[in-house]
């Protein structure tokens, strides 16, 4: 496996970096890593917003147990 791919993608992919990416340049790998980082951040932000909005919709009676499950 390409050392560059492992070095650049591992922080974003976590566990393992698959092989077969040798043909990509460092610049391309970095570009993709950056897109992945942004995608994860966007997903986390959207999820947090969605949870807040969901709590608004949940009837008052259920809000406390739902909140407990969501946030402990």
């Amino acid at each position: 496996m390409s050392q560059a791919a492992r070095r650049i993608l591992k922080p974003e992919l976590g566990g393992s970096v698959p092989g077969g990416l040798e043909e990509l340049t460092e610049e391309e790998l970095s570009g993709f890593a950056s897109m992945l980082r942004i995608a994860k951040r966007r997903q986390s932000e959207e999820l947090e917003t969605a949870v807040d909005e969901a709590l608004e919709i949940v009837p008052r009676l259920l809000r406390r147990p739902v909140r407990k499950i969501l946030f402990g």
Partner: protein
Amino acid sequence: MKGYLSPAVEVRRLARLIGADPEDLVYFERLEGQAIRDLRDQVTVAMFDADRQLLQRVAVATKLVPAKLGAVIGERAFGALLCARITGLLDPSRAVDISKHLPVTFLADLCLHLDPRRASRVIGEMPPDTVAAIAAQLVAGEEYIAMGGFVGHLSKAALLAALDAVDDESLLRTAYVIEAKQNISALVALLPDERLANIIATASGADLWAEALDVLAHVTERQRGALGDLAAAQDDEVLDSMVRAALRDDLWSEVLPVIRAMSPESRERFATLKSIQARPVLATIMDAAAEDSLWAELLVLLPLLPITARRQVATLATAFNRETFEQIIGAAHEEELWPGLIAFATELDKGPRREIAKLIDDSDPDVLQSLLTAVHDTSLEANLMAVIRELPATGQRHLGTRIAAAPTELVDALSAAADEAGLKPLSEALTK
């Protein structure tokens, strides 16, 4: 094309997963499709892991609210993408209950972001009418890649319902991008012959032969033959369009196995098509056979071609080297296609014919034995003599000595044929 994953299709899947424009990831198309898919699998895990705890908690909390309210929250607060991430974490029956309260447009949108492998049980429990409605929605949006991911996860009833909801052209386009190609034969098995014949006509009308032939590369040998027969039953215009597409897009490696799998009558129909007999077509067929070692496929087709086309093939074969002829003889032996080989060899120019004669002389005993038996069974002794004639006297004697060890019946028949052909050195060696 077996097991082939299109890099362009895989790039689109990867782009969708991270919400990117496929154009921004176009450099990935330099990679093997499998490498992009492996990366996508890892990205799927990473995207999920990024919010694993909260996603799991949302899934648990969903149990507390009625299905209808769950649907409202899903649609209004979470949206299709996040719902797709959560779907696989839900109890399947719960997910199905919630889906009943969601509009089809939302479900179709959710499907675009769903990783079917992570939500297989949910998909498997989706009611057929819902699946059909979603399929129709996805077709309207030309979302063939998303649809292709679901085959293999749907129940048979749901798959049948979806097939009814999808037109022939969309079905072909979807089959081409099915993620689990091993499911194509099961899908084809669900379609009646009439529909399959219409799909073949559609491949011609919409110029989707590359897609149709890819499907044919992933079905069972029996299905390939049956589909080939259905194709052969179409008008010349349909078959000519396939020949044109094969020539233009280099698809003979996909076409030749289909021709081989057909019934003899269908094969004959293909072989006598005017369009297949043109020299450029024959040249690309020979190139494909050489490139992918499709010699058995070629040997099945060649004897059926009209004489003028066979002569063209013979001329093209003068460019073959010894190694290529060795492969052709190997295919004839392994696939028991000696009559095809002998017919091919007798039409070659002297040089290539001598090469084949020498290879026969140099062949292993079991190869020679199977050739002689096949020649005797099909009464092709005279044709074999036309090939052996190209050997010098010493070669004929050497081969004659080897043949003399065969059963008497074979030796007698070949001896008579050698006499008839005036091959004295061979005849003498056989009668010693």
